[in-house]
């Protein structure tokens, strides 16, 4: 392998872009240095490609080709268009925090009358503030993962949520990412959510485009820490424009007797990749990770999960469903590692793909690495078409073909959606899936 990597034209362009963008990136001194190192880590590797095992199915050099320059900060017209888009993905009863083109938009956000024990700030405010340790935590990078490093280097803004010990939030927090830029551009956001001991919270992340947004790239990162005996319910819905890219990561760590329930639904974006890393740091905790991909056209959606069992007595469950039509491509990579000390781990993963056309593709790559001897671990993966005998039964009872298919698809994704604990959010996920099915029919 070459140690010295010759810079491509686009690589050089991005270097220059970083040099220019630095002026706009909040944080001085140590933070600026952290960004510089993260950018160097990215530059050494460049855009990931298929010869890197983790990126085998999602070759960003081929799919994305280049990282676009930073989107301009939104003007008044952009904010007006973004407001409409934000409204369309709003969840009733949730406290909304809106980021437009990578910039916190106070006028579209609802930060009045926060629950006692809840603190919400913009990332910019934190990076420019006095708490350098917090700022460093928010921009945590991963030198081994170029897209996380790039996100850490370039993040312009985001949301920092602190939930103080013992606080039970009365309403979900919804972070809404809206792209509005009318020329192709990239947005980099980073958010940090910290749950203290004995807290309970619900976090929703939504991604969508305003009218007129053009072939944008959304690069997002989320860092979450869940304290002892705390619970976070998390729902993530990617409904980006069909010519857009969404490259996101989440890094979640759990204390002892903590609970994390997460559900992701991707029906938007041309190319998306979601890298979710979950680390158990305390005993007796549990995680449910569930997801649904609903893809058609030439969409490409990749969910890459890394479940790190480092301590004993923790449980993890993954249920992942992909519905793939036309020439779309769904990827699920699930790696579970059970380290030597993690006795009594109970980890199970089930992934199923439904192919609705001959040219649809689904790749499932479960990986189990088990270094402890007293554990329960299992995984399963299936890929297939809709069952003809079930379709005929439904049609023989009077359901038109598309309706029969829709009913079976709903049932197929239902098992993952049912894992959402909150009735309202489950209903929201069901409606989002139904919208996709109706658009299909």
């Amino acid at each position, binding site marked *: 392998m070459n140690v010295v990597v010759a810079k491509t034209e686009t690589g050089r362009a991005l270097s220059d872009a970083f040099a220019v963008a630095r002026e706009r990136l909040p944080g001085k001194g140590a933070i600026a240095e952290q960004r510089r190192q993260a950018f160097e880590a990215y530059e050494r590797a460049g855009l990931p490609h298929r010869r890197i095992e983790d990126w085998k199915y999602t070759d960003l050099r081929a799919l994305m080709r280049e990282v676009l320059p930073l989107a301009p900060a939104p003007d008044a017209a952009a904010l007006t268009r973004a407001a409409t888009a934000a409204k369309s993905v709003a969840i009733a009863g949730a406290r909304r925090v809106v980021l437009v083109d990578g910039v916190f938009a106070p006028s579209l956000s609802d930060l009045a009358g926060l629950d006692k024990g809840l603190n919400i700030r913009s990332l910019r405010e934190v990076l420019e503030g006095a708490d350098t340790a917090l700022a460093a935590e928010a921009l945590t990078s991963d030198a081994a993962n170029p897209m996380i490093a790039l996100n850490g280097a370039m993040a312009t803004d985001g949301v920092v949520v602190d939930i103080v010990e013992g606080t039970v939030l009365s309403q979900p927090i919804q972070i809404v990412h809206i792209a509005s830029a009318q020329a192709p551009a990239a947005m980099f956001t980073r958010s940090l959510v910290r749950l203290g001991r004995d807290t309970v919270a619900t976090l929703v992340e939504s991604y969508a485009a305003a009218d007129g947004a053009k072939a944008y790239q959304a690069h997002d990162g989320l860092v979450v820490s869940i304290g002892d005996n705390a619970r976070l319910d998390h729902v993530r819905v990617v409904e980006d424009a069909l010519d857009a890219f969404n490259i996101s990561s989440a890094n979640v760590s759990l204390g002892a007797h903590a609970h994390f329930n997460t559900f992701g639904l991707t029906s938007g974006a041309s190319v998306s990749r979601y890298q979710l890393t979950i680390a158990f740091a305390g005993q007796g905790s549990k995680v449910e990770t569930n997801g649904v991909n609903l893809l058609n056209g030439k969409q490409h959606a990749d969910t890459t999960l890394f479940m790190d069992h480092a301590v004993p007595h923790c449980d993890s469950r993954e249920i992942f469903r992909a519905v793939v039509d036309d020439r779309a491509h769904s990827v699920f990579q699930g790696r579970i590692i059970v380290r030597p000390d993690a006795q009594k781990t109970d980890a199970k993963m089930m992934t199923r793909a439904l192919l609705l056309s001959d040219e649809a593709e689904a790749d499932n790559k479960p990986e189990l690495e088990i270094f402890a001897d007293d554990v329960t671990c299992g995984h399963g993966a299936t890929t297939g078409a809709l*069952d*003809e*005998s*079930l379709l*005929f*039964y*439904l*049609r*023989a*009872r*009077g*359901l*038109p*073909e598309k*309706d*029969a298919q829709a*009913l*079976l698809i*709903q*049932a*197929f994704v*239902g*098992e993952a959606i049912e894992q959402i604990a909150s009735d309202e959010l489950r209903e929201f996920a069901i409606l989002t899936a139904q919208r996709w099915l109706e658009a299909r029919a």
Partner: protein
Amino acid sequence: MSLLEVKDLKVRVEEREILHGLTLTVNPGEVHAIMGPNGSGKSTLSHVIAGKPGYEVTDGQILFRGEDLLEMAPEERAAKGVFLAFQYPVEIPGVATMNFLRTALNAQRKARGEDEYSTPDFLKKVREVAKSLNIPQDMLKRGVNVGFSGGEKKRNEVLQMALFEPAVCILDEMDSGLDIDALRIAADGVNALRTPDRAMVVITHYQRLLNYIVPDVVHVMSKGRVVKSGGKELALELEESGYAQFEDAA
């Protein structure tokens, strides 16, 4: 006019001809039994009437109230009033029975240009029918046929027959996999649906079912044809002498 007319029907499955010119006429109010050994084409006939994909009709006709049934999609046939009670009703995990029943009933009504049922009216109707068939309410909340016993699956078919009120019911081997008590419950359900307007075609291998659902006409099928037709006494005769006598006749 006859309700259902099958005229000189020839059907192939993957290059092999299964029905070699079958003719059958069913009038309103009649119950026809079709008996025959395994492989005689009984189930193929029921599948072709319902419109199951995978069968190639090479000759002949199926008319329903004078309309060409073979030109219709399975869902159109259902909406017109053709009902097939499956020999092996499928399990559909994740689709609640109640949701399935309402969706299907309203799809049929919509296709006929009728108003869809409101939820309270629908629930009332289902509960009445379920009660008469000894189907517990919790069964209706489960996935369609998921975890149902053989008897429960067949009762669920009869429940659908009662709800959809079809003009012609094809019962494909309703007795397979049922013990005598389950058979009696299912047969009582079917008998309750006999009306002067509705016809039934009961497909069975054994005479036993016909003790419970007494037919007006019995047809013997062998090798893809009806080889003999007669009254209900023909079924008893078959029980005595078996199908062997017809194997050569075909």
